[in-house]
C-alpha cells in the first residue's frame, strides 16, 4: 500500500495535513510519526512546520531528523510545507539567525515592518490567498492552473530569485512560493488549507515519483 509519512517533530498540528491527504488520495496510508524506521519505509514523506524556526530546527536536530531528511531526499519524494520549506534552506534570519538544513541555496528573510507595494502598505504576516506563478511545468503542478491562489501565512520568506524557485508570488517582493530539486518539492503556502488547488497538489504528491 502507498504510504505517506508525515514527520512529527512536535511542532503544531499535523491533523490537517494528514486529513487533507486522506481526503484526496484514497488507498493511501497516511502516518503521522516520529519513528525513523516508519519514516524510512514510507513511499513518500512530508516535512511540515509551523511556528518559529529556532524551535523547529532545534527539535529536528534533537530527534536526528536533519540527517534523516538528508538521506530521504536521495531516495524518495519529499514535500516540505511552510516552515518545513524554510528549514530546507541554508539559513534563516528569524530568531537572530538560525542555521537550517541546507538542502537548497537560499536565505530566509524577514518581510520587515514597513512593507509596501506601490503606495499600498502591506500587512505582515503575509496572510491569505495569493497567486502563484509557475516558473515551469512540473508533475506537482499538474491540474493546477497557472496563477491559482493558495493560502499563505508567514512573516519570513525566501526570495523568488533562488535558482530552485519553481513558483513565485508577489508580496512586496517576488517571493519563492515553491522550490523544487530532484526528489524535493517544497512550498511556502499551506496546500492542506488551500481548498481545490491545494488538494490537487497533495493528490499530485501522492502519485509523484520524484522526477520532473
Amino acid at each position, binding site marked *: 500500500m502507498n504510504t505517506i509519512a508525515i514527520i512529527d517533530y512536535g511542532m*503544531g*498540528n499535523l*491533523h*490537517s495535513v494528514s*486529513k*487533507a491527504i486522506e*481526503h484526496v488520495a484514497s488507498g493511501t496510508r497516511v502516518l503521522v510519526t516520529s519513528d525513523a524506521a516508519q519514516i524510512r519505509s514510507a513511499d513518500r514523506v512530508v516535512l511540515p512546520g*509551523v*511556528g*518559529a524556526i529556532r524551535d523547529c530546527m532545534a527539535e529536528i536536530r534533537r530527534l536526528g531528523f536533519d540527517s534523516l531528511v538528508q538521506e530521504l531526499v536521495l531516495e524518495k519524494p519529499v514535500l516540505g510545507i511552510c516552515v518545513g520549506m524554510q528549514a530546507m534552506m541554508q539559513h534563516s534570519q528569524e530568531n537572530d539567525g538560525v542555521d537550517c538544513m541546507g538542502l537548497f541555496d537560499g536565505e530566509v528573510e524577514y518581510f520587515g*515592518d*514597513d512593507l509596501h*507595494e506601490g503606495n499600498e*502598505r*502591506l*500587512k*505582515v*504576516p*503575509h*496572510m*491569505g*490567498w*495569493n*497567486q502563484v506563478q509557475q516558473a515551469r511545468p512540473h508533475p506537482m503542478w499538474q491540474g493546477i492552473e497557472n496563477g491559482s*491562489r493558495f*493560502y*499563505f*501565512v*508567514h*512573516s519570513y520568506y525566501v526570495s523568488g530569485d533562488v535558482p530552485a524557485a519553481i513558483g513565485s508570488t*508577489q*508580496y512586496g517582493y517576488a517571493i519563492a512560493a515553491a522550490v523544487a530539486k530532484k526528489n524535493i518539492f517544497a512550498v511556502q503556502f*499551506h496546500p*492542506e*488549507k*488551500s*481548498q481545490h488547488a*491545494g*488538494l490537487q497538489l497533495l493528490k499530485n504528491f501522492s502519485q509523484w515519483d520524484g522526477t520532473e
Partner: protein
Amino acid sequence: MGLAKRIIPCLDVDQGRVVKGVQFVDIRDAGDPVEVAKKYDEQGADEVTFLDITASHEERDTTIHTVEKMASEVFIPLTVGGGIRKVQDIRDMLNAGADKVSINTAAVFNPDFVGEAAARFGSQCIVVAIDAKCVSAPEDAIARWEIFTHGGRKPTGIDAVEWAVKMMQLGAGEILLTSMDRDGMKNGFDLGVTKAISDAVSIPVIASGGVGNLQHLADGVTQGGADAVLAASIFHFGEYTIPEAKRFMQAQGIEMRL
C-alpha cells in the same frame, strides 16, 4: 494582482448548534456547525471562524469534537474562539485541527498570555479579538472607542486603538475587531474604529459586527482598511451567498479569490 481580501463567515456555536443573535440576545438556530462550515468551504469562503459562545467547561469536549470533525472535512483555514484562557486550551484547539485561536477576555485580564501564546505557538495562529464600543459623544471632535468584555457587557476603560497596538507588540498575528454598537444591527461596520485600528497596526485586521448587505462588506475594505471581513447572518439565512459577495466586492475594484 496580489493578496486577496478575505470573506470569513462566522459560526457562533452554542451547545453544538450554530446560532445568531442580535447583540447577543434573541438567538436563532442556523444549523449543524460542520454542515454549515462545509457549505461555506464549497461556496469559496476564504476562512471559517468558529466562536464557542457558551464556552462553559462542560461544553469543552463537545467543542473539541466539533472542531476535529470540521477540520477533517473543511480544507480552508479555521479559527476557533471562545473560552481560550490557558496555553492548554490553545494546544487542545490546534491539536483538534484549528489553524488559529482567537483570544478575547483572557487577553484583557492577562495581556502577557498573548505574548506567551505567540512565543509558544507562533504569531501566525494567535488572533486577538477586540470588542469595541464608541465612548465619545457624536459632537466630540475626536472619536474614542473602548474595549468591553463578556459579550460587550463589561467596560474596561481601555482605549481600543492603544490596545490593538499593544496586542500586536506582544505577538498577536491578527486582530478580530467587533463593534459592539453594530453587532447584529445590520447597519454596517463601524468604519471609524476599523480605520483607526487598521492604520495603527501592521498586522491584518478583520472587521466584524453589523453587516447587513454587500456594500457593507466592500466598505469595510475600501473605507475601513480591513484585510478581511467577517459576517454571519447575511450568509446563514441565505440572503447572500459567498460568490455573490465576492463578485460584488470585485466589481468595486477589490482583489478577491473567485
